[in-house]
């Protein structure tokens, strides 16, 4: 059975359709044939019985109290056979002598009563099937009465109808029917062929098993992805959702996604993006479950008509962390390079002084260098966060190379920060603000940058002051792509990133630009640290 079912879809459909159609056609035909067959038999019975009765009541059949002579009876029966659709008539008198018979030789011979006794004794009228005469026939038997005042049974008449005639008529019906049956089966063959092909075209030629496999594989692949994938129709109803998307949108396993609307989760941003921009691939950034997500929207077309959207959710949190680290490492690398360059200069200087044997000058240079190192240490004393410290040292070195006076305020304070997201964001903010200041003061004489960080009452303040070119439009600076230097593409992300990270931490940033001095001030709530500090203020 299993092997029998293990055939292609087309074969299955063909088999079922042809099978069912043939079964119906054939069983209907058989039923019809059986029905008309038994009707033929019934008709033959009725006809023969009616004929037997009619003959038995013919007045000329009897002569007084007895049957007429043979010749008269034979004329009578022959005429009757000629006029009616019956095959033979046998007349027997009460003694069993045959008076009329299809076979003339039988006339006058004696035939004992057997099946016809019921008519001969009891006067019964009935039919039976017999093969006693010539060939199998339906035989009706009727008694013949004679006499006027007192009737007397004087013989029986038997009327026969050959079964072969019935069978012949059934055969005619059968051949007609079989023609129809064959035509219909051929028809059903073509219909099922067409239907099988149609189904196959609907499934793109795949077998159901293959389709299942493809679906399963797709499901597996999608669920293995870290990216969330959502299929939604135009109204926003979710038609597909992979595991990652479920996680990002916070839809529990048990929930039926068909009831969810993507607009409930990505509402406004998605609408505005869809309305604002031209069709094609669109994206925006958003935050879901404290994660930075890039949402990419692809249009979904079915038969050339827009039917929905495929939404891809890409978690940018790790990526931005990574890029932050990379930036820091890059800048450290730059700073190292700057430092080594600086030291090389100093070494050249010392070597030159040695050549000239100006030892006092050498001592001054060395003292200066040692002071410098001390001042780093002193100014950074209040900053307990090592990563920020390292960043600041690196920036100092860069500043020295760029001949910028970079100063860290002695009052700067920063506690250690354990949260990774926060520290990454902070590093991005600080690094970008300082870099921005470097850019602002580039090319000026006696350029100064001052960095300050303070820690008040659970709020972290970061201030970067420069005496650079100043900013005319303080609202525009945080826009993506804004740059004072419009000469190269790919710039202008620094302050945009700062703003994003400040918002990520729930703080705000301000910029003041007046009389050639620009101050960026970021205020960031340090909820965790404040919580720890204020947990028990009365202790």
């Amino acid at each position, binding site marked *: 059975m299993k092997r029998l079912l293990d055939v292609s879809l087309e074969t299955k459909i063909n088999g079922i359709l042809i099978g069912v159609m043939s079964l119906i056609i054939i069983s209907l035909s058989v039923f019809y044939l059986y029905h008309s067959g038994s009707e033929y038999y019934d008709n033959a019975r009725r006809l023969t019985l009616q004929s037997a009765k009619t003959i038995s009541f013919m007045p000329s059949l009897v002569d007084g109290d007895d049957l007429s002579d043979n010749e008269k009876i034979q004329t009578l029966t022959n005429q009757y056979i000629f006029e009616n659709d019956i095959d033979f008539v046998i007349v027997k008198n009460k*003694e069993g002598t045959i008076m009329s018979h299809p076979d003339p030789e039988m006339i006058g011979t004696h035939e004992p009563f057997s099946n016809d006794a019921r008519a001969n004794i009891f*006067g*019964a009228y009935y039919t039976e099937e017999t093969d006693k005469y010539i060939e199998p026939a339906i035989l009706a038997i009727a008694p013949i009465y004679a006499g006027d005042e007192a009737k007397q*049974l004087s013989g029986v008449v038997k009327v026969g109808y050959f079964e072969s005639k019935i069978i012949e008529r059934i055969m005619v019906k059968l051949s007609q029917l079989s023609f129809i049956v064959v035509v219909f089966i051929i028809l059903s063959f073509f219909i099922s062929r067409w239907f099988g092909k149609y189904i196959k075209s609907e499934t793109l030629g795949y077998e159901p098993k293959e389709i299942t496999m493809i679906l399963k594989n797709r499901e597996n692949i999608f669920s293995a992805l870290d990216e969330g994938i959502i299929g939604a129709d135009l109204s926003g109803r979710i038609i597909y959702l992979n595991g990652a998307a479920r996680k990002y949108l916070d839809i529990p396993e048990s929930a039926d996604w068909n009831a969810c609307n993507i607009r409930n989760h990505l509402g406004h941003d998605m609408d505005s993006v869809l309305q604002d921009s031209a069709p094609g691939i669109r994206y925006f950034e958003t935050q879901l479950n404290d994660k930075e997500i890039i949402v990419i929207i692809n249009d979904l077309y079915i038969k050339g008509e827009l039917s929905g959207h495929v939404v891809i959710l890409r978690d940018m949190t790790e990526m931005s962390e990574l890029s932050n680290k990379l930036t820091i490492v890059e800048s450290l690398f730059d700073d190292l390079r700057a430092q080594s360059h600086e030291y090389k200069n100093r070494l050249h200087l010392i070597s030159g002084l040695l050549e000239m044997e100006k030892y006092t000058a050498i001592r001054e240079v060395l003292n200066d260098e040692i002071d410098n190192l001390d001042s780093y240490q002193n100014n950074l004393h209040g900053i307990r966060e090592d990563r920020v410290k390292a960043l600041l040292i690196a920036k100092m070195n860069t500043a020295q190379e760029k001949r910028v006076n970079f100063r860290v305020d002695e009052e700067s304070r920063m506690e250690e920060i354990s949260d990774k997201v926060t520290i990454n964001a902070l590093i991005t903010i600080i690094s970008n603000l300082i870099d921005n200041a470097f850019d602002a003061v580039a090319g000026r004489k006696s350029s100064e940058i001052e960095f300050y960080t303070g820690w008040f009452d659970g709020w972290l303040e970061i201030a970067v002051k420069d005496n650079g070119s100043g900013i005319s439009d303080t609202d525009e600076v945080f826009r993506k792509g804004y740059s004072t230097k419009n000469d190269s593409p790919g710039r202008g992300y620094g302050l945009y990133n700062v703003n994003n990270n400040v918002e990520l931490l729930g703080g705000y940033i301000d910029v003041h630009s007046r009389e050639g001095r620009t101050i960026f001030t970021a205020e960031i709530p340090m909820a965790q640290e404040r919580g720890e500090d204020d947990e028990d203020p009365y202790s």
Partner: protein
Amino acid sequence: MKSRMKFLSVIMLALVLVLSACGNGSAESDYPSKNVEIVAPATPGGGWDATARALQNVLDEEGLVEQNMNVVNKPGGGGEVGWQYLKGKDSHSLSINSSLVIANNLLGQSDLTYEDFTPLAVLATEWISVAVPSDSDIEDGVDMLERLKEDPKSLKIAVGPALGNNDHLSFVRVADEYGVDVSQLEFMIYESGGDVLTALLGGHVDVATLSISESLEQHLSGNLDIIATTADEPIPEDESIESWQDQGIDFTFPHWRGIMGPPDMTEEEIAYWDETFSEMVESEEWQKVLDNNGWQDYYMNSEETKAFLDEQNEMYEDLMKTAGLTE
């Protein structure tokens, strides 16, 4: 969909309960709820008609049936017309029947069989006699059978009104069992029992088979001799009349009359008539009817009647198929 199906099935169930409750109630208390019709499948004056009218009188006078009862005559076809009529009626129509309800079908006279109806009771029977003229040299039944065995054509036998009736069947049967070639027997068929009697008394025939009620009077007055009866008990009017059993032939044959209803009567309706008829046959009025008509009490309730009819049917079938084929 599912809930709709559930809803439907509940409704159906409720409907069934209500209907069945109604059915019980009405059958027990209300039946018969209108006039009862007794069909006599013969012309007024015949045996079936007499039975129907006697039944009507007794049930009415004894107050066994509260509703009015009417006798309806539907003559023709040896009962066929009346019984066809009954088949289409409800349970307030009953019909008198006899062995013809079985024999008609076997003789090819009717498509109806006794199984198309609801048997209610067998009420009475009379016995069948074989009579010879008083001057006949036939001594008794066995003597007659001996003669017929020797030459089946030696005696002319009168029967009426048709072959295949009880008078005829009982004679054929006893002759067949004795070894007579029944196919050669010379039966003269007369229009009625009266004509049979006339033919016998007039010497046109040697023997007649007819019911005792028809022959007894002439026997008592000495015009003819009853040489055998199909009875299983002595005839009260003349205990010297010998039955076949008395002559050493184990053979009885009741010419019974009964009553039946249309097809598919309920058990409650059947029970109602069982009770009614069993009370009726106990009544003195009914005894008088039996005496007046020369009938014997042969009461059987519906269940016994059903079994009796099955048995009779088998007997008739057997008789008609094997008679004359024993040699």
